[in-house]
């Protein structure tokens, strides 16, 4: 058994896959360094150094075989941070190399491919929820600020959506769990990685003067648009699971 350790980046993962083929490893696992604990003392450790050209060769091959949308699906598996994600991606790439003529990701009867489709579905759902459940709060410096805590690392997947939509206001979306965010300053829309966790204590005191008023209006609207005679809390919670409530203006 050989264990390939990579730096946790997507390019690193593709480099690792390249080296699996390069060294003809059969019995192999790929693990991110951040998540590695030596358990199997018999495992042989192989340190992967991320190399752009190796990653690119895997990328180009995949693009030929399964297209951009196929790569996108594998990227979503990677962003899911699922403990088995590296193995699933490796398995899918191996299958694709064996059957280059087919889009192997359509073989839903294969257990690993089905997992790709299942994970993509979960990641897509979380991505869509973040486009829905992000709640901006206007701050004194006119920045619209939102905190999120998504189950998967979906910030890279929602950037374009918000960039297209809000072009005439400064905004910021911050992932509390992964400590990074997106900032749009009317010109650029980039990821930022603060050195320390953002200090969010008493941040409501930095609200813009109108902010609380609009929040109240929204809360009243939310209450009044409900039809009491049709109350169906089960359905409500199915659509808006409790774990999202803490960031929803209308649920606080």
């Amino acid at each position: 058994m050989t264990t390939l350790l990579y730096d946790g980046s997507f390019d690193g993962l593709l480099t690792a896959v390249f080296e699996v083929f390069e060294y003809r490893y059969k019995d192999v696992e790929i693990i991110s360094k951040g998540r590695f604990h030596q358990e199997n003392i018999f495992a042989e450790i192989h340190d992967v150094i991320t190399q752009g050209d190796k990653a690119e060769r895997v990328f180009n091959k995949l693009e030929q075989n399964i297209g951009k949308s196929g790569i996108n699906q594998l990227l979503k598996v990677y962003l899911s941070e699922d403990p088995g994600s590296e193995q699933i991606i490796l398995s899918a790439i191996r299958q694709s190399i064996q059957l280059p003529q087919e889009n192997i990701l359509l073989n839903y009867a294969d257990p690993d491919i089905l997992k790709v489709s299942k994970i993509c579905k979960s990641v897509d759902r979380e991505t869509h929820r973040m486009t829905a459940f992000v709640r901006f709060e206007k701050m004194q410096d006119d920045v619209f600020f939102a905190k999120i805590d998504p189950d998967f690392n979906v910030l890279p997947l929602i950037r374009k959506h918000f960039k297209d939509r809000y072009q005439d206001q400064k905004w910021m979306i911050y992932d509390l769990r992964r400590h990074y965010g997106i900032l749009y300053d009317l010109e650029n829309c980039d990821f930022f990685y603060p050195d320390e966790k953002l200090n969010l204590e008493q941040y409501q005191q930095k609200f813009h003067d109108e902010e609380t008023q609009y929040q109240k209006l929204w809360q009243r609207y939310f209450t009044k648009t409900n039809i009491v005679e049709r109350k169906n809390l089960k359905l409500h919670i199915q659509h808006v699971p409790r774990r999202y409530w803490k960031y929803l203006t209308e649920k606080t």
Partner: protein
Amino acid sequence: MNFDRLKEKLEILADAAKYDVSCSSSGGTRKNKKGALGDSSASGICHTYTEDGRCVSLLKILLTNHCIYDCAYCVSRSSNDIKRAAFTVEEVVDLTINFYRRNYIEGLFLSSGIFKNADTTMERLVRVAKKLRLEENFNGYIHLKSIPGASDELMEEAALYADRLSINLEIPTESGLKLLAPEKNRADMISPMRYIQNGIAQYKDEKKIFRKVPKFAPAGQSTQMIVGATNENDLQIIKVADHFYKNFNLKRVYYSGYVPVLEDKRLPSLTTEVPMLRENRLYQSDWLMRFYGFKAEEILDPNIPFLDLEIDPKLSWALRNLQQFPVNLQTADYQMILRIPGIGLKTAKKIVHARRFQVLNMEHLTKLGAAVNRAKYFIDFNSGNMYLRYLTDKNFRKLLIGGSASKFHNQFSQQLSLF
């Protein structure tokens, strides 16, 4: 801005607008222009859900609940003694923009009680949309209500600024409408609808010739019918829906189970329950027509004009057409796989892809997401299927019902306890 007064108006006018079902924000094609606000080119987004489980995608309000009409089923009817209010154009624009900036909504759904006359009301609705588009550079979604009897000129302008227009038929039958809304008539509702339909077709033709043609109601039209306020049957409702889908190219028909809010001898009593199960079955039938290739005539047993409440309409069709089963998963065409109870659109697509790689069995079916507790009786596998013997069983229907729990279970037990 006087926020207290605004809050009071919002409460009254949101409360009065909530019976409009539509909250769809999809089908728009408006992309953000450089540096402006909003983009409604993607699929719709439900930003939250109310406690009744309905999606909130748009800020859904009335411009005013003052109304000259006295329709029996409507809370805003003129003879009803309720608080009345009216927004100014500026207030609606301000609310829409500020809610949109905070990512609360996809846009605005503006309806109105009819004050003075149809054109005055329509003109005011159009003014809101125009201000949002031209002064605020807003590219979010706008759904405007077409006011029955509004003139063609105003409808033309409405379609240039709104993404969707809708006009509610309210009561499925003309006789029912005459009874409950004597001042309204079908013809007044149909004429703006026809105008928009022709306009959409015309702009589409022009687009083939000219590169730049203004958008004209890009998300199309929809309508809504109240179910259970009069004594219409499901066959009539489905026929009406089918007629409007086919002849008016509607994007959606919505069904709204009647919520008894007013005492009136022409209406069901205030203690009547909202017919939510019936409404659900109508939506299922609607889906069968729009996505599953069913014809309106196939959905109901010609001898029984009501939908089966115990089982869904697709299963009900299957039971009436047992000779079409079993279906072989490996060889049947996509349209027939879609008709198998327990298999939905996505599963059907997956089956058609996956069977190219290998021969499918029952286990695959479970993993692909089919409701196997129903589907298993209707499918033939190359490897055989022991459940097929029940197809010819006299008690097949009972067996099927026993095998699945309905989410409307409570409603059944209430009905059964009568006996």
